[in-house]
């Protein structure tokens, strides 16, 4: 079985996996990294959203081979030790989560958005495709704005 080496949450990892195995299952079933969630498997719900070389991507539709030699960051790698990322802090401040299942993906999407667009408009936030079946959308919007303003909405 082929081996693939990539950087995962700051650490180099090597896994044996078929080339075409979606990274989501490599993370969840081979590496025990369960922050990225399965919600559809076809890149639509975006509950698995993580970062590939700093850009948002959906591990359910990217093969492990395509990630070889690159840098993968999941929700588990976002905080700096016990110091949360400002977007995670904003999520807590705004009490965004209900069931919580989509929130790792929502947070990773928001972090990527704020990297591209540090001061997003409502129209920018409207472009986010991630589903939240609990309907926490207004608080997601509020948390993104809070994080954009450095924690002072």
């Amino acid at each position, binding site marked *: *079985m082929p081996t693939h080496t990539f950087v995962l949450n700051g650490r180099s990892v090597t896994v044996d996996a*078929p080339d075409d*195995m*979606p990274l989501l*299952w*490599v993370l*969840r*079933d*081979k590496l*025990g990294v*369960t*922050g*990225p*969630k*399965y*919600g*559809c*498997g*076809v890149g*639509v*719900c975006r*509950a698995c959203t993580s970062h590939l070389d700093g850009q948002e991507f959906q591990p359910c539709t990217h093969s492990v081979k395509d990630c070889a030699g690159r840098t993968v960051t*999941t*929700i*588990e790698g*976002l*905080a700096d030790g016990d110091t*949360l990322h400002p977007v*995670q802090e904003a*999520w*807590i*401040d705004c*009490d965004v*989560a*209900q*069931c*919580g*299942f*989509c*929130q*790792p993906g929502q*947070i990773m999407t928001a972090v990527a958005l704020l990297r591209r667009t540090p001061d997003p408009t*409502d129209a920018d*936030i*409207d*472009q*986010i*495709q*991630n*589903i*939240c*079946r*609990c*309907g*926490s*959308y*207004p*608080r*997601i*919007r509020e948390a993104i704005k809070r994080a954009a303003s450095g924690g002072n909405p």
Partner: protein
Amino acid sequence: MLGLPGIPDVLDLGDAMILAGLPTAHLLVLEITPAGRAALHLPRLEVGQGLTTAIAMLVADELDAELTDVDVPLSDGRPELLFNQLTGGSNSVRSLYDPVRAAAAAARARLVTAAAHRWNVPASGLRTAGSAVLAPDGRRLGFGELAADAASVVVPAVPATPKPADQRRLVGRPTGRIDARDIVTGRAEYAGDLQIPGAAPTVVARPTTVNGTLKSLDASVARAMPGVLAVVQIPSGVAVLAETFDQALKARDALRTTWTPGPVADLSDADVRAKLRAAHAPFLLPPLLTPYLDGEFDFAFVNHAPMEVLTAVADVRPGRAELWFAAQSPIIAQQTIAAELGLPQSAVTVHVVRGGGSFGRRLFFDAALEAAQISKAAGRPVKLMWTRNDDMRHGRMRPASHHRIRATYGLGQVLTWEHRAATVRTDLSHGLGEALTGAGFNLSVAGISLAQAFFLLTEKNPYNVGIPTQLLAELPLQLHTGSWRSVYSGTVRVADEIMMDELARRMGQDEVAFRRARLRDAAGRALLDTVAKAGDWGRPMPAGQAQGVGYHEENGGRVAYLVELDATDRANPRVIKAVIAADVGQVINPRGLEAQLTGALSDGISVILLAGNHLDNGTFREGSYADFHYARQRNTPPTVEIHLMPPSGAPGGAGELGVPAASAAVANAYARATGTSPRSFPINF
């Protein structure tokens, strides 16, 4: 003119559930650990409704513990609780408010008594704060240091009664979720995240039509694929076990199967609608000399589609079984699975795991039952996951329904209001019938079905509209259905609220004033006033935009929604603002309540404008969120304003409350913005 109160005014579903649970309500377990943590073992499921936070607040207040010292683990299935471990009917806070406070107050009294013995001082002079007992001289003993002694206190030396409301620090104060940090760091664990040793990732190949059966199977190719551990047959399909879900899914694709069509294979949406129309009882009152208004409404099937797909871990061994899943009805699950496996109930352990949403879906334990069957057949532990496609095509649905309403009026009054609801039969076989029987309802003596009883206990018209009559006709179809957040009210009350708007306009009255003049409940009138004022009801709107209102009361709560909707682009109408006012009696956590009301708005937008499921020749067309259009960020309003009334009385239920009113407000705004009378939902389907 006065209307007649409905049954829910006297006794609602929640009251019945509380009655059923009363004999075991005191069997709560509150544990104080030597480390000083207070753990209330919760016989309910957390699926995002914020229940664990609300319960932690109640415990912390009564114990005088720090909120951060309180844990609320979910109890395993506890059959001795009988009817008191069913999460549903917006009933958890209503049914647990008194017992949890009583348990915590009793624990506090025993901790104080233990400290009094330790210090040899009168207990009456001691107080509690910050997870500790404090003496007047400044001595302090943490709850953890007293836990062992307190356990042996039989008769507390201080009263063990809950505090008066004005002495509480937390109840009623906006409080963030106790599990927020776990969620934002990815540490919160759902069933699929559990690392149960040896549990093989498993998926099931399912029939091409709902309830079809396997005709032939050739698994030779699948069995030979890398990582495949086993292929086993179960009543609902063919299970593939592998080392990873990717390998299980690929091997599932490689199964060669043929299927016998299911019992509804010749049915599509149009057939179901025709059958529903034919199922109605006729109206009692033919229009004679009285003016009248008729309305007919269709609601599509709607999948629950919680973000976390159904997942269950099962480890079935000779003589015993252990399961892990998000269970709203763990006792019934335990009984059913034990019977399926031929084991005594006591040999089956159900571990209740937090769920990634539910909306009624996890009242049923479809995946757990299958996982048990598969684990038994394969002789090893399994982690079964339904794919999104599995749950869209073979999962449960809010039943499609048709509603026929006739209102007669004259001299400025509504004289009669007849509502005939016909729905595909709702499967309620998840322990509710047992609970109602436990509460003293003898359904067979009453001569009505469980669904009829549920309908009678939940559905009422809150307005003085003469003599309201509501009848449910059920269409039995062999489809998988279930309660969907707000159950019958999600369609019945929405249709009523649309008719209220149309009747107001027919009678030349303002839609809000028309409701206000007829609403029986004064607290409800205050909510209408609040949203009308805060939302500037009647303000001029640009062409293509309009306001709409909806009102609903149920489960001891009431709520009004006012939305503004932009239908300039009819293919993409958008709610651009919402003003919500709610009165649910005593609020435990206002932030949690606001979250529920906001989520209900998202549901209302979805089921009215966007999201439904088509039945095409016995199979559901939609396969994922790509074609099941649950609202996304761009479909929801940037501005949501929520007004909560001051706390009063006992807590009401709020988990489902918002859905009917929000749905109605969206439908009514759409009608006013477009000058149309929408009759079929979702509108863009």
